[in-house]
């Protein structure tokens, strides 16, 4: 009796088909609208940039690989590499000092970061360039005693090149210090403790355990900084160092081909930043392998 009753209830339930279901995505009837807008804007841009004879693209092409431009480009590239390298090294030292438990040391690091982040890089560059106005002679000795070990004329030491390296590297050191510090703080303190408990010195624990893990956090903003540095080197044109931009400027000040030469610069900068982005991606993938695994 009861069995038939249960069966009857089951029979009354509306039939739910479980197979042969087809999923129909939303039709998206208006998806063509943004496509048309973008294509329209792209067409406008193409017409106004590529077909506008005043851009003088043939001239851009003729200057692109000219010896003067390539020489300026080389200066820009080695200046970027050198200043970034010095900046990163300086940044690590300042970051570790900033985290020191000796108040004078951490205080000095704070002061350094405060000053170099807080004043315009353009002013710093001009300042270094004109250092001779403040200190005609540069020397090394014991303060307040008059004892000197070494002395030289400032203008012999501070050339446009050294002024550029000093300005850019010291400034970059301040920014990198904060990036490195963020990276180091992102590593769990237990890592340091385990390393110390195994008999590692502070320095070895930093080098072998902390910094490699901090890299995950340090790399992306450092890539940003490198790209920023590449463009920031163009500021050295104000102290007459013949980088890419300064070279272009000195050409167009004679020939008045201002726009084409600036376009040459822009194209080179874009090309270099693209290369840097690819390199950054590779490095990130290398240090990110841990992170993908760290999902669990």
């Amino acid at each position: 009796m009861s069995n038939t009753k249960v069966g009857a209830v089951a029979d009354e339930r509306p039939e739910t088909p479980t197979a042969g279901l087809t999923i129909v995505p939303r039709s998206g009837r208006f998806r063509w609208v943004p496509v048309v807008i973008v294509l329209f804007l792209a067409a406008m841009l193409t017409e106004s940039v590529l077909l506008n004879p005043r851009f003088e693209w043939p001239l851009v092409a003729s200057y692109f690989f000219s010896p003067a431009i390539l020489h300026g480009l080389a200066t820009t590239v080695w200046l970027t590499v050198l200043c970034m390298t010095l900046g990163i090294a300086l940044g690590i030292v300042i970051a570790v000092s900033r985290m020191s438990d000796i108040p004078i040391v951490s205080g000095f690091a704070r002061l350094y970061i405060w000053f170099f982040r807080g004043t315009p890089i353009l002013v710093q560059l001009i300042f270094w360039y004109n250092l001779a106005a403040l200190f005609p002679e540069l020397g090394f000795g014991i303060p307040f005693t008059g004892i000197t070990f070494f002395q030289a004329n400032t203008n012999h030491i501070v050339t446009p090149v050294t002024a550029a390296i000093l300005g850019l590297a010291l400034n970059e050191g301040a920014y990198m210090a904060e990036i490195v510090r963020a990276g180091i703080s992102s590593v769990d303190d237990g890592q340091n403790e385990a390393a110390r408990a195994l008999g590692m010195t502070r320095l070895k624990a930093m080098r072998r355990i902390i910094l490699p893990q901090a890299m995950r956090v340090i790399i992306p903003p450092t890539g940003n900084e490198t790209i920023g540095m590449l463009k920031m080197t163009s500021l050295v044109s104000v102290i007459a160092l013949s980088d890419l931009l300064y070279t272009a400027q000195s050409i167009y000040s004679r020939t008045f081909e201002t726009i084409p030469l600036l376009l040459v610069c822009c194209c080179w900068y874009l090309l270099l930043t693209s290369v840097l982005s690819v390199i950054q991606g590779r490095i990130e993938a290398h240090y990110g392998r841990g992170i993908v695994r760290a999902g669990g």
Partner: protein
Amino acid sequence: MSAFMVEALDVRKSISNLDILRGVDFTVARGEVVSLIGPSGSGKSTFLRCINHLTKITGGYLSVDGELVGYRREGDKLYELGERETAAKRAEIGMVFQRFNLFAHKTAIENIIEAPVQVKGEKRKAATEHARGLLDKVGLAHKADAYPSELSGGQQQRIAIARALAMRPKLMLFDEPTSALDPELVGEVLEVMRGLVADGMTMIVVTHEMNFARDVCDRVAFMDEGRIVECTTPAELFDSPKTERARNFLSHVL
């Protein structure tokens, strides 16, 4: 050679005005296994960390294997040792942490050989061979190339024990080794620790695992408010605690 592996006399530790250790007297003989139990905040972990100078004591006398930890004695003064000397002493004492602290960027076997190669200067090949033996001992030979994030908590802790053993320590410190584990993973870690006891390792274990303390340890020390209140055989402490505080604590945890 001192009779004791660890000897603590009136060990004190305060941070600003807070007294964490208020005179700990404690000895551990060679080959002895002692567990430290007590309510949280009683100073168990702090005392354990003082033994390898991860935490600096602010008073008293503390020696491992007859030698002061982190200090050099001249007359009535204790001078803190340089970093290298302290590091060298720490290298002889193994430590296992509550949160494992495996090096996240290294595989299991790389974790184990890191300190022997970097600190002791062992040859990579010899260290790797030793490490494989240790992995086998903790039952994780098949996980040699796994990263910590690919391992369960119990497996990570077993690797951490192997990592400490790779330095051939004369003393092992365990800081709540099973407290961060899911209940079903506690057994495998305790199993490895039982193996160490069988090998005759001198061990100090801060733990909440009362069964482990009762079954495995030679003595159990009950700590409260920065002092060791009672230190005796497990049977005596668990079955007939002498102090009110120990009775009270045990009634809550057993």
